[in-house]
């Protein structure tokens, strides 16, 4: 698989790594091995702190008792990150399995959001040193998550976890706590290049993709960070799933298992905040001081160049592969002031006096709702759109009334816990999950046997709800039209590797970003 000559050239570093993952390298004869090889490193290691809080107490209230909701109190802010959803068809609404499951997933999503956005230094969320109790979050720490641009490197080079890559043009701007943001082809253009999003100040919204360690390790260890590596990889792609700890149950033949986090991928959207012009907004957003790197063509027309901007988080998408959700669990959050909602009768519900991506003041001269800006779309280093156009975005009504109501209750409660911090300004949209249980069981069986999913009649296993879109990340595919409108699973289900012939990439488009070692 790997070219042994190139290994020899990188002998020392490679030997160190190999000790961790137990490669055998028979051709590397420089250091005769005297001790047995180190055990293979577990890329999905056991954890002792999975958050197993359920949304109701149904597990401890036998039927026909009516379960009650888990109280939403400050204790939840430090309860940790779920390794897996804890859900049941039984819950607050008797006889409505779909609603009870949905609520369980939405509760999981809030716990996930809180845990991932907690300060990287271990403090409680909302108690950081910055305005509004803000702090550098866990996902912004390279010890926990790595941006896509630092994994899929030029020429398909092998990435190294934890390293901070500072492009030459950014060195003079660098400083403590600065995030390096490497613009890729979709950093300012929505998926499939459907268009950029321009905020009310005329700035481009920016998008980034990150992955956690288990997801990264699967890519790194299997050589999937290059086109050639993907061509060589045999067998279906299957990222490691997360699971909460399992207690032994001898009667059912269930063995004890520790919890494991599994693969998590993250997509974030930002608006640019001017420290002067927007100073009254700084404590309303989670902010990052970012060095934005323009690599030049083909990703950006300008560049190489580097500029510093203060970024405010406006969108947060999590994909978490878990046991019971081999199609992953899809969580989406937005800043509350992004856009107004479309009401049940199609009118626009303008509740705030200003929005990030909607002009409340225009009358007959408003741009068409949810339309793309005029071309050309490529930003220069000012990251300001050339021309007066501002995106006029409305959140289309894609969810059912009951889901909207259930999520609104959670948002009210959790935002209440975060009152007085930047985090009170974020809300959950909802969570998409695979609803067809027998289908999920079949898919997991095939995954375990390392077989592909060609024999499954529906590899997405019934996504619930059917459609879901984040107005900052899927601005232009909102709606309820099958396949044309945004559905996390339906779209990600089409993602493939660069293997020939193309193989399913396990619901991630990250693999198609790998570059080639050849030109």
């Amino acid at each position: 698989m790997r070219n042994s000559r190139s290994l020899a050239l990188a002998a020392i570093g490679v030997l160190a790594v190999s000790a961790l993952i137990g490669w055998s390298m028979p051709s590397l004869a420089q250091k005769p091995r005297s001790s047995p090889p180190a055990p293979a490193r577990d890329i999905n290691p056991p954890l002792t702190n999975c958050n197993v809080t359920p949304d109701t107490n149904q597990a401890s209230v036998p039927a026909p008792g009516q379960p009650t909701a888990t109280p939403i109190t400050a204790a939840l802010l430090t309860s940790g990150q779920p390794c897996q959803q804890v859900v049941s068809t039984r819950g607050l609404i008797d006889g409505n399995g779909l609603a009870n499951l949905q609520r369980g997933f939405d509760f999981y999503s809030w716990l996930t959001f809180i845990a991932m956005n907690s300060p990287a230094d271990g403090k409680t969320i909302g108690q950081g040193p910055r305005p509004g109790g803000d702090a550098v979050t866990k996902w912004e720490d390279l010890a926990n998550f790595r941006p896509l641009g630092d994994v899929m490197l030029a020429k398909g080079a092998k990435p190294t976890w934890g390293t901070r890559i500072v492009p030459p043009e950014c060195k003079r701007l660098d400083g403590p706590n600065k995030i390096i943001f490497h613009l890729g082809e979709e950093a300012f253009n929505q998926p499939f290049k459907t268009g950029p999003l321009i905020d009310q100040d005329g700035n481009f919204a920016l998008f980034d993709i990150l992955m956690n360690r288990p997801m990264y390790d699967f890519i790194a260890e299997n050589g999937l960070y290059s086109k050639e590596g993907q061509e060589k990889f045999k067998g279906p792609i299957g990222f490691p799933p997360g699971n909460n700890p399992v207690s032994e149950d001898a009667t059912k033949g269930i063995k004890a298992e520790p919890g494991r986090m599994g693969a998590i991928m993250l997509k974030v959207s930002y608006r640019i905040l001017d420290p002067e012009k927007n100073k009254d907004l700084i404590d309303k957003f989670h902010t990052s001081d970012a060095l934005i790197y323009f690599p030049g063509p083909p990703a950006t027309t300008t560049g190489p160049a580097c500029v510093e901007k203060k970024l405010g988080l406006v969108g947060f998408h999590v994909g978490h592969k878990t046991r019971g959700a081999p199609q992953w669990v899809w969580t989406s959050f937005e800043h509350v002031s992004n856009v107004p909602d479309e009401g049940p009768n199609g009118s626009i519900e303008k509740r705030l006096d200003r929005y990030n991506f909607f002009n409340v003041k225009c009358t007959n001269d408003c741009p068409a709702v949810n339309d793309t800006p005029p071309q050309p779309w490529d930003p220069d280093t000012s990251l300001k759109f050339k021309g007066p156009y501002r995106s006029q975005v409305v959140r289309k009504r894609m969810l059912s009334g009951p889901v909207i109501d259930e999520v609104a209750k959670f948002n009210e409660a959790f935002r209440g816990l975060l009152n007085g911090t930047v985090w009170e300004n974020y809300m959950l949209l909802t969570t998409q999950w695979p609803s067809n249980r027998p289908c999920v069981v079949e898919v997991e069986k095939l995954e375990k046997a390392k077989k592909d999913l060609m024999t499954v009649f529906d590899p997405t296993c019934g996504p619930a709800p059917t459609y879901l879109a984040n107005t900052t990340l899927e601005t232009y595919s909102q709606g309820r039209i099958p396949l044309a409108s945004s559905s996390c699973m339906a779209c990600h289900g089409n993602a493939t590797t660069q293997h020939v012939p193309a193989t399913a990439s396990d619901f991630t488009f990250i693999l198609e970003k790998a570059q080639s070692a050849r030109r």
Partner: protein
Amino acid sequence: MCAERMPNPDVLIVGSGIAGALIAWQLGRKGRKVLILEAGEALPPDINDYMKTFLAAKDKVPESPYPPALFGATGLTNPRTVNAGRPTVLSLLPKGGFGDWTDPKQAYLIQKGPRAFGSTYQRINGGTVRHWLGTSLRFVPSDFEMKSRFNRFVDWPIKYRDLERWYGDAEKYIGVSADVADQNYLGINFSSNYPMPKIPLSLVDMEVEKAMPNLKVADVGLDDLKWKVSSTPAARNSQPYQARRVCAGNTNCIPICPIQAKYDPSVTLAFALRTGNVDVSYKTVASKVYVDGNGRVSGIDFIRYDKDDGDPVERGRLTAKLYILAGNAIETPRLLLMSKSEQTPNGVANRRDDKGSVGKYLMDHPLYLAWALTDKPVWGYRGPLSTAGIEVCRDGRFRRERGAFRIEIGNEGWNFPIQDPDTTTVDFVNGLNGSGLNKDSKPLFGTGLTCALNEKLSRQFRLGFLVEQSPDDTNRVTVPDQVPDELKDHLGLTRPHITYDLSEYTKRGMAAAKTTASAIFKSMNAEEFTTEPKADDPITFEWPPGQTTRIKYFGAGHIAGTHRMGERSENSVVDSLQRSHDHENLYLVGSGSFPTIATANPTLTLAALCLRTADHIINKVLK
């Protein structure tokens, strides 16, 4: 409007289909300023509306996702009420009823006969290639030399080798998936690789493939042919490409791919717009071309509208250094022929004597459709609409006598011939037998229904034969001078009049297709179900000549020939660079430039010609 947005274009292009979009992009990326006039609707931010319209359509015809609306309150939209109308297959029906092909209140094209022209097109951003299948075959070298090799018709003024490099570029720009090793038959050669590997074959293809070694077809000039099935090169992603997803086998290429794994010209239009040097004015119909005393085009009149059936909102005239008409092989000659003046008594680019060829030599691929039940399940309705075909029969001595054909293997069961699975489903539920599969006309339900339907649907498949139509100067587009209002569109412009028939050469090709189809089915041990068409069906002809039996031809949507290229202007309209013989600053681009139509689907060849034209314009004309 137009003047404000792109005040002094170097080039004015009429039509934002694949021809116009490719040329605009090539010019724009080299810094030339281009304004495109597009008669139809603007590029939408997403395909939600097209998909919604398609899913709700009761007749999922190729036009069904796209505006303008096919139906009004009382039936087919009257083309007189539409500003930028277009034909639909729904108006190819017998005289006297719904969809009467001769009724101008239902049919956009004014069909003078004797036979109906069977193809349609779109007038919309991206043009007709929005709804294409994606088949991207190259012509074979013989195709360019019909006169030299077979003493038929004319030679092209260029050869395969002149176009070879442009074929490679076109394949890259639209993203064609194929393996060179499968495609170098009949003299085709390659100087570059395809950008993506081939699309895998379907079970249907594999079943046809099994029958190839034993296939013998008599009496059609293919006696010694080594029959084989070939993967079809297609503008359909087999890898992530151009930020579009890989094919998921939605089996919906025509009329619209829900995930845009199939190339459509909105991709190229987006590239063109991104250069910052191209602008498009939508719902803007070019209505007249002007020529000055020096024989140069001096301007184009336009009419802009807002609602499909509303009054115009702006009229004006635009000028540029160079003019390119890319409006398809019916709308471009229509515009030329509408542009009569003292300078251009026969219309623009049409000579001043009676030897002009604009609008003449109209060609299509008449398509012979045959369908059958295989003896064991092949499970159609899966994968792209077509993944393979039989190409080895496209060339040979028989071209002296009859039109050649290629064979397209369909993956969509009997959807094309009888609109299945709906028809068979209704047959089995309601006790009918329109499909021919419910011989007792028995209504079924429950397990009896599921078994019967499964047993039949899983064995359906069809073959389509694209026959080379001869270029006949009597097949033509005309625009008579004085016509009653009902023959005009809502802008007051006369709609294209079509005179059309099939020559004996073409009919012999169709008959050979019929014989071949039955032979293939026989060698597969498949039971043929091709029905004989009725006498009142306007897209049929008698065969054998003088008999009452008939053969049906469908329009493949491949409109060509009406501004053919050639070396001399006595029998051609443009030269090999698609430049008008008569007007040095006018280009007429697209499959209208084809002097013969061969057997391959025209899009790749027209794209190659357009890239060659664009290169010439950039390097030699607008230096």
